[in-house]
């Protein structure tokens, strides 16, 4: 926590967006008993106009196992990204979660017409992972971060070939296409958004907001 308090721009001192997103996922799971039909990505319902599912599908989870790993990874990656010089709360909320989720959902709609239902945060976590590791590499130029990025690629390749590693208990199988789409979105964000990294937080917030107009 000492590192967080010493942030140069002084705000935010805690990763409030990350904590808020984690709390939202937990609350949705606890309050609505897992993945409620009204919130999951449902292709037919989305085509029928229920556009909120493009986003909410990524925030609901099938079971405790599913929720635990995804929220755990969100807390770790979100904290690092939200407090990074090139990241910040607005970019995390709008570019990563909003943009990443939308990109993944649109990819599912257009490239995977056979996928009727989808839920879970992991595709967005791939966006976050790619944006964070490539952002850190661009910031520090240390090859370690490229290796970290490659590790996620390796994980996806392994899962494509042999199935999920240690995964037990998911009613719906992990969707590799969504994960790859999330990773691609993260790459785009990392290279598109680097120029904002040195600006103060309030400018970044404004800049990030403009990105979505």
């Amino acid at each position: 926590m000492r590192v967080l308090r010493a942030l140069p721009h002084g705000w935010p001192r805690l990763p409030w967006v990350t904590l808020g997103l984690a709390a939202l996922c937990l609350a949705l799971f606890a309050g609505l008993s897992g993945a409620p039909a009204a919130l999951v990505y449902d292709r037919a319902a989305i085509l029928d106009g229920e556009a909120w599912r493009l986003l909410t599908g990524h925030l609901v989870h099938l079971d405790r196992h599913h929720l635990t790993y995804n929220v755990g990874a969100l807390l770790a990656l979100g904290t690092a990204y939200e407090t990074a010089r090139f990241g910040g709360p607005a970019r995390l909320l709008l570019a990563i979660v909003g943009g990443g989720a939308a990109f993944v959902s649109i990819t599912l709609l257009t490239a995977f017409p056979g996928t009727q239902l989808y839920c879970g945060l992991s595709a967005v976590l791939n966006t976050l992972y790619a944006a964070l590791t490539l952002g850190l590499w661009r910031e520090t130029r240390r090859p370690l971060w490229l290796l970290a990025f490659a590790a996620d690629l390796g994980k996806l390749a392994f899962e494509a070939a042999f199935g999920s590693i240690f995964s037990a208990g998911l009613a719906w199988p992990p969707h590799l296409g969504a994960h790859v789409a999330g990773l691609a979105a993260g790459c785009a964000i990392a290279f598109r958004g680097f120029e904002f990294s040195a600006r103060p937080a309030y400018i970044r917030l404004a800049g990030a907001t403009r990105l979505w107009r």
Partner: protein
Amino acid sequence: MIIRMMARPAAALALGAAIALGAGLPAEAAGLLTPRNGGPALDLRDQHVDVVVEDGYAVTTIEQVFANPLATDEEAIYSFPVPLAAAVSEFTYWIDGNPVTAEVLEKQEARRIYEGEKQAGRETGLTEQDGHKTFDIAVWPVRANADVRIRLAYIQPAGLETGIGRYVYPLEEGGVDEAKLAFWTANETVSGAFSFDLHMRTDYTIEALRLPKHPGAAITQEADGSWRVHLDNGMAAAPPAPAGDAASAPASLAPANAAPATTPASATPAAAPASTAAAPADGAEAPASAAAQQPFRLDTDIVVYWREAASEPARVDMVAYKPDASGRGTFMLTLTPGMDLKPITEGRDWVFVLDRSGSMGGKIGTLSEGVSRALGKLRPEDRFRIVYFNDQAEELTHGFTPVTREAVEQAVAWARQVQAEGGTDLYAGLKMGLDALDADRTGAVILVTDGEANVGNTETRDFLKLTQAKDVRLFTAIMGNSANTPLLQPMTLASGGFAVSVSNSDDIVGVLLDATSKVTHEALHGVKLAIDPAGASLRIDDIRRDDIRTLYRGEQLVLFGHYWGDGDAALKLTGAISGKPVSFDTRFAFPATATRDPELERLWAFAEIEQQLQKIALFGEDADVELSVVDTSKAYGILSPYTSMLVVRDERFQELAIGRANRDRLAAETTARETRAGQPVQSVRADRGQPMFSSPAPRHSGGSGGGSGDFGLPGLLLALLVLAGALRARRPAAA
């Protein structure tokens, strides 16, 4: 399973309060039965369930202890729902500390001997099948202040649907037998130790296991790729006695009249925390005990799903048993087809025919939820009607309704308000649904029922005529345990449709996804399967399989048969997809000897008996067919509606001139099971050399169905490493 206590004042008050509040009846369950006007009930003290899924079938062994806290000797009567396609192969009763295995006798004869032994004060036990509803076990005597131990085992095929396997340990009583429910009460609580263990051994990669209604179950994968599921109620369990090893049975359980009746004090806190133990972290060791609840209530089915890896191929699997090279062998063939079945895009008419009779009381919530979700899946170009039936049929909609958001929302609201009451005029409901179809459009009827027709026309033959009179496919969701599967299954298959069993413990979204995937894709119609020896050294006969005329996306074909000799055989599957003839073939060898799976003989016999029972259902009672069922049942040692399993003291078997064929068969099976357990998992794929299908087997992932995002343990570890690295890299700047 139930040991009902409804005669007790508190339970009666609770039921009365529930009725007064307008709530549905509490879910019935399996258990120890007591007449409603009788005295205090016995105690179901321990129950241990052990399931092994291997080589395409599941063997379930249930061992339990009944305790008698009373001052007089009592008869224990235990009832539980008939599991789907289950061949009961063992009933064992510990007498004087020694396990005595039951033999199969004609039903009336077995009952007569049981009553005679009981009158004479000698130990005896009887297991009967009450039609398609329940297995009933009677044991005499449970001595005053003592307990008895029994074991029951059954075998059933364990298949896949679109890559998803499903095993059900049925506990929730179906509520379809009103006479029985009126007479008996049941205690559905295990006061002592309860455990459920499932071991899944297969050469094919299983990606995940899941118990939707039992999240506290421990699920682990072993080094050899097999999976284990463990569930218990956190109470110390007496180790089950190995088959045939009376000496190792716990002393307190061995002599029927030796142990004091002890109801554990820990069994009393009804407010013990409900399931708190989560499934273990990925890759972690299973906890020794996944606490569920104490005592354990036998009112919720245990449903286990497993998902095969998408990379596993379409294929033909064969398991054979032939102990003697010159004798007769038995085989089970399982086809997991891979066919190019394209999605259907044209608009369709759907008629939902829904059962809201009293027997649907415990299932109406699942029904309305399933219908709501099914309606939500309809496309704008579709139309629908909804028909309900109990004592009579009525249409909820006014003719075919276009699929609009408002119409669906209104229908969903109606579906959620439906109350279960009255009798079941299934014929009237089905007729109204079938008559409602428009001949100019493609249509289908979705029937959701437990099938217990008791009002109006109940003749099976008339149901078949009704469905065959219309050129329409019937899709049936068979709700709950004890459902009238013998009526619903053939009726559905005869129409070219398919039937799915639905438990209240099922993942209704998953069931719906699978059914949707079937009806929205092309299917293989006019299915014909031929298996012919390639040379004179092999002869194949006695093929038994379900009368499947249309093979839907993700369905498997299972057939049993006998063979003599050995050598190659050619297998050919033909049919038509959208009017275009297609053919798939392969060739593989039948072994000269195979000793691994003696249980196959009972599975073949069960398929044979099922076929005979269907004849009786279709054409009425026939003495010759009934005799054939009795003969097969006795020859292979499996329970049927016309036979029972009887235990008497060892010396009484001799005195009554009852042969011990089932004991010997069971000994061979036990030996084979122990041998298998010590061997590595074996491949059962038969068409490896010449694959029968070139297309992959359909799976929900990547095709139709649901997907999820699971970052998993490796992802979480990577994330933590990245966080640590990022914070570390920032320190110099922070300083």
